[in-house]
């Protein structure tokens, strides 16, 4: 399932996939795959993404 919340949060911060990837030390493809729902990140990576986007795990990774 696509992670539109992550995409929206990233866009809100005016960050490209590459910018976010550089901030948390992963490849751009990894961010792309998380957004497209092709890869389930570890909790550690989820936390790094949330910290970079200044949001909580609930905001980005919790599915209603």
């Amino acid at each position, binding site marked *: 399932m696509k992670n539109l919340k992550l995409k929206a949060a990233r866009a809100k911060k005016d960050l490209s996939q590459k910018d976010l990837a550089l901030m948390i*030390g*992963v*490849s751009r*493809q*990894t961010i792309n*795959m998380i957004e497209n729902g092709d*890869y389930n*990140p*570890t909790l*550690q*990576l989820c936390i790094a993404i949330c910290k970079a986007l200044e949001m909580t795990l609930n905001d980005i990774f919790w599915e209603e």
Partner: protein
Amino acid sequence: MKKVIDERQEKDMYVIEHYGFWIAFYGLLGIVLYKVIAGYSFLSFVLEVCLLLTLIFTIIIGYYKKGIWRPYAKASQKEYIMTSIITFMAIVIIYLLIQIVRKVKLTLYLIGIDLLLGLIGGIIVYILAYILGQHIIKKE
């Protein structure tokens, strides 16, 4: 040394290595079986056998340490019996193939010996599987 790949790439790498491992494993098994059946002297493929045994023990010890029997089933009596039946069949088939390839006349006596060796192998494997399986259950 600091890694330059991220967790997803590392996971992808493990998947590639996993396939590489099993290709090497079955390739090696095929070579050893071919040489056994074709009647090569043991000394000519002793290194392949050592390598194959290393791979087998790595898997068995690794699975045992992590409390895993196999990916698709848990340790149980059914699994031990199945493992010993597969061993029995493999031993009988390999011995029969060796005799057929070497053009040995298949007598009832020889087939009986093959079955007996298969039975002994099956019993030994059942005992080993039982001991290993019970330890794995305890670890769970």
